[in-house]
């Protein structure tokens, strides 16, 4: 068991090192940091000194190793744009993004699962076909279009929802939450809907597929033969069997959802990590971009590793399975 966990963690570390290398490589092409940092009046000598101080004259491997060692300690340097510590900048925005992502995930489970069961059980009925079709539209509408439409309808035409921002936030230690104030909760509604739409359709489709398979399985047939009520089979026994893959997928998708949130954040002016990243992109603020990339990938890899290990704990057979 321990060997398996170690192996998994080692694997995750290797992937992270490679991500760091990739990030590092990409930013080698992103232009000369000295040109970004230096102001117009700076002399060539000053520029050279700056280059030396930034360590840009060192060899590639040295620079990469320094990047990795610093990154592992959470030191991503300071932002070219505003001179603040990158990790602090990201940490300050982390709660905003996480709240948005968690609420959107909860929404997608709460809506997606019942819809999935419904369409599976009533396969072929008109409303289930209609839902199926709607779900295709759900995955086809670009996230930014959904956001714009929601703002147009609920903020401008109806005037019942805020069009931007997080509303009033309350500070709980380093975590800032908008969930504790009425305006904070109201501000969360539209972005969360817009972010969850895609996820709802994914979950609905997954639950539907799983349900349809489970309903064909032997234990359902047995239960039916023993006279267990139909709704009980469907909603308790069958659904229970579907939840594991759903939860797995939700957990593994979390990293992608955090990254995807950057579009929602841009549209709703949501002060999260994604908006910081997009601003960093327009400013070519390399330290922030690199840090964001590494942090998102870390969350992604960590979640995957945890899911893997959890599965292995639950089912010992998987420990020996080859990749």
């Amino acid at each position, binding site marked *: 068991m321990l060997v398996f966990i170690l192996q998994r963690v080692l694997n995750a570390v290797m992937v992270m090192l490679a991500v760091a290398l990739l990030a590092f490589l990409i930013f080698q092409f992103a232009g000369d940091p000295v040109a970004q940092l230096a102001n117009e009046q700076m002399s060539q000598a000053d520029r050279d000194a700056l280059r030396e101080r930034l360590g840009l004259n060192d060899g590639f491997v040295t620079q990469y190793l320094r990047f990795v060692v610093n990154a592992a300690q959470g030191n991503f*340097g*300071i932002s070219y744009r505003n*001179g*603040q510590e990158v990790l602090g900048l990201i940490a*300050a925005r982390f709660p905003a993004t996480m709240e948005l992502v968690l609420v959107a995930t909860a929404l997608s489970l709460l809506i997606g699962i019942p819809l999935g069961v419904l369409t599976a059980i009533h396969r072929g009925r008109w409303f289930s076909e209609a839902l199926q079709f709607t779900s295709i539209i759900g995955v086809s509408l670009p996230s930014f279009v959904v956001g714009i439409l929601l703002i147009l309808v609920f903020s401008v035409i109806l005037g019942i929802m805020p069009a*931007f921002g997080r509303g009033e936030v309350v500070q709980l230690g380093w975590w800032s939450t908008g969930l504790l104030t*009425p305006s904070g909760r109201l501000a969360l509604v539209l972005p969360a809907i817009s972010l969850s739409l895609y996820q709802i359709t994914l979950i609905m489709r997954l639950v539907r597929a799983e349900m349809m398979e489970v309903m064909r399985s032997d234990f359902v047939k047995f239960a039916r033969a023993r006279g267990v009520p139909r709704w009980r089979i469907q909603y308790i026994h069958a659904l229970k069997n579907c939840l*594991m893959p759903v939860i797995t997928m939700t957990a593994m998708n979390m990293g992608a959802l955090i990254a995807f949130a950057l579009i929602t954040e841009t549209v709703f002016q949501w002060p999260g990590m994604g908006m910081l990243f997009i601003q960093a992109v*327009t400013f070519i603020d390399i330290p922030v971009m690199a840090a964001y990339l590494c942090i998102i990938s870390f969350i992604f890899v960590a979640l995957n590793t945890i899911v893997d290990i959890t599965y292995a704990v639950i089912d010992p057979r998987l420990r020996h399975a080859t990749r």
Partner: protein
Amino acid sequence: MNGRRNDNREEFVMRSTLRTGVCFGLATAFLGTLASAETTLRWADPLDIYSLDPYSYGSTSNLAFLNHIYDGLVRYTPEFEVVPALATKWELIDNKAWRFHLRQGVKFQNGAEFNADDVVASLNRASHPKSPLRGNIPLFAGVTKVDDFTVDVAVKSPSTLFLNDMTNIFMFDAGWLEDNDALEPTDVSAQIEGFATYNTNGTGAFILESRVPDSKTVLVVNDDWWDEKQHNIDRIEFTPITSASTRTSALLSGEIDLSSDAPLQDLERLSAQPNLKVVKRTQLRTIMLGMHREEKLDDGRDNFFNDLRVRQAIDMSIDRELIAERVMRGLARPAGTLVAPEIPGFSEEINELTPVDVDKAKALLTEAGAMGAEFTLVCSNNEYVNSEEVCSALISMFSRIGLKPTLDSGPSSIQAPKRNSGKTDMYLMGWANEPTLDAYSLLIQVLHTKEGEAGVANRGGWSYPELDAMVAEAALEQDRETRLAIENKALKLARDEIIMMPLFQIPMAWAMSDKVTEVSIGADNKARHWLTRMAE
């Protein structure tokens, strides 16, 4: 996807999440925000401030914002007159130094008293070799304390322009800087944060309460401000809203009280609202086109821009009135010369617009053998109001006379270094003549040959010795009228030679709810909320 398994564990997880969910809901039900009776100004702008450190970045909007927290020795009135702030009076000593007599009894927001040591520490910090603001006080030579409330600031030349520059240099508390290890400016390359990047301690009309970058910065009134309070604001909530349409919808829904830089395309709709009003005017800033003027273009081709006929052809292809009317919604002022009418040195004779003449332009191009010439126009999409649209329109106009322009558009953080490199074929830039407020600023910094301190913004590399001579003459001329006449002559030369092509003065528009009763809007587009009043 992994297989499915049935396990009690998952049930447990589900239940416990449910339980915490319920507790959470209950907790939230008990908490709420209290409505306050204070006067709050909710203010939005397209851009957030970069840093709370006034010496961190030479950005006009950043400094204008921080001017609410910090004061300088002198300041501008909305009419651009230099008036006392933390200094009560000043005089020139031997044409070598300015002696400032400091205001007594002024307290920093941490309670410390303002005195000469603070001025010395502040000016040393601002002029430190690592300071990004160093270039903003080019005449500064050194500072010495005379007594607790008198300082001498040595200058390289006795020009009163130094006082104009000083309006942007704010005063820190020396003790506070020292205690927090911030006597030196923040050095980006040092990879450490500066204390002043996050914290403030000024003498200004407002005190920083909280700041979440890109989200909200809250200022509250400083009741101990040294100046007579003309505003009635208790609290300013500053929110950056990048997207034009979001800014408009926030105004429409009443989420904000005031938006500086309201989107031009939405002004009609905004002013049609009964509870909103729009204030608009043109700024001092003239938008102009510059061209590469060295012998060869950066890619090695012969430089066709050096042929006056080509420049004339381009000039007469630009329909300035149409751009002002359509792209700028009738709010820009088409320009025939490079400075705005408010700027001394301007005259109506040289401001006549070049008539649009496509046929003549084509003929000139053919004559010069530049038909079908290819070049790139470098343009930023977030520097000036609607600048990307202006550039697109220019591209069509140039194409119509038979040129083959390419548009290179991007955020100014990327485009400005390109433009400043002096390698671009053609570029769009704006010049407001701030803080000098005299055509001399444009003449010496933009139109003058690039040599030494002169021509720093001459990004095309042109050289007109005749113009340089006029500039030198103007610099020495003591009589204002004679000097302005010389400047006017130089501007006329610039026009005849088409060194640069003026387009228009950009408009500014602020939209606000009718709760805002008084607001000071200068042609420099800076917020001065210590002069703003709101309905109680």
